[in-house]
């Protein structure tokens, strides 16, 4: 799965996600990617794109949960992203995956609970990251 999230000069966010699914998947199986709120979500607070086991994202609406944690829990983007993917319902069901997210202020969150995630980010606030493994 690949994905991208961005915030532009107007403070508008967007999220895009695309996948070929899982190797040897059953024909007709749909993962998280095209389901709004599960593996792809954006609103006036943030934009989020997920990757990992789609069924786990579908069951927990992990990407929407990031936005909810920000809006109703008044969490920062980083707290909301980590809370959704490393805690809460995702952890309860032993979910596996990661997400990238940005908020309207230009903050970036790259978080996952797996051994690695191919990821990169760049912002006008000085963020410049390219990484693969969890200890980077």
């Amino acid at each position, binding site marked *: 799965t690949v994905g*991208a999230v961005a915030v532009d000069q107007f403070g508008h966010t967007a999220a895009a996600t*695309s996948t070929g699914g899982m190797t040897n998947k059953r024909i007709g199986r*749909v993962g998280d990617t095209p389901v709004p709120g599960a593996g792809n979500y954006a609103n006036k607070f943030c934009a989020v794109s997920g990757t990992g086991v789609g069924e786990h994202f579908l069951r927990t609406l992990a990407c929407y949960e990031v936005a909810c944690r920000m809006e109703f829990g008044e969490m920062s983007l980083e707290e909301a992203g980590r809370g959704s993917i490393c805690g809460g319902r995702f952890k309860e069901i032993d979910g596996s995956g990661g997400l990238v997210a940005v908020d309207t202020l230009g903050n970036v969150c790259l978080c996952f609970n797996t051994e690695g995630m*191919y990821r990169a980010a*760049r912002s006008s606030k000085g963020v410049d990251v*390219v990484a*693969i493994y969890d200890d980077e």
Partner: protein
Amino acid sequence: QGSVAIAIHGGAGTIPRNSMTSEMDAELRSVLKETVESGYNILTQGGTALDAVEKVVLQMEDNPLFNAGKGSVFTSAGTHEMDAAVMEGHTLRCGGVTCVRGVRNPISLARAVMEKTRHVLLCGEGAEEFAREIGAPFEPPEYFFTKRRFDQLQRAIEKNVTRLDHSVDGKEVEGKTG
């Protein structure tokens, strides 16, 4: 003028260091850097977040290193089925396609669903018919064939498991796939 930012991912999962050669590691990092830079340039030149995310995902769909578009993994039937979605935050507009075959860039088709239909999600044959109506590029099955993905399918069939594209032996997600 507000802050601009972009973040990308190319998949998450079991990625042990010893499973990748130094050349592959370097190539992946180079592609990730190049891709995020191209999206960042769109934003700094006044482009919209929607344009930036579509452009960078499209680039990754065209790169066989990633499990999307050209590099998509095989289904149990030895075919390719792709899903994609896009969402715009300030309008809550979104569009998606599922289980499409042969479409070169599902992410652009998802954006077209958002912008050119009254719907959010189109699947399978209906999505492919819509793609033909708007003149979206299609590719033959050979375009989506990569030996690495084919070998992954053979190993998954032998063990009767379903796997994330970069998972290693012993980290299967589920058993029976029919």
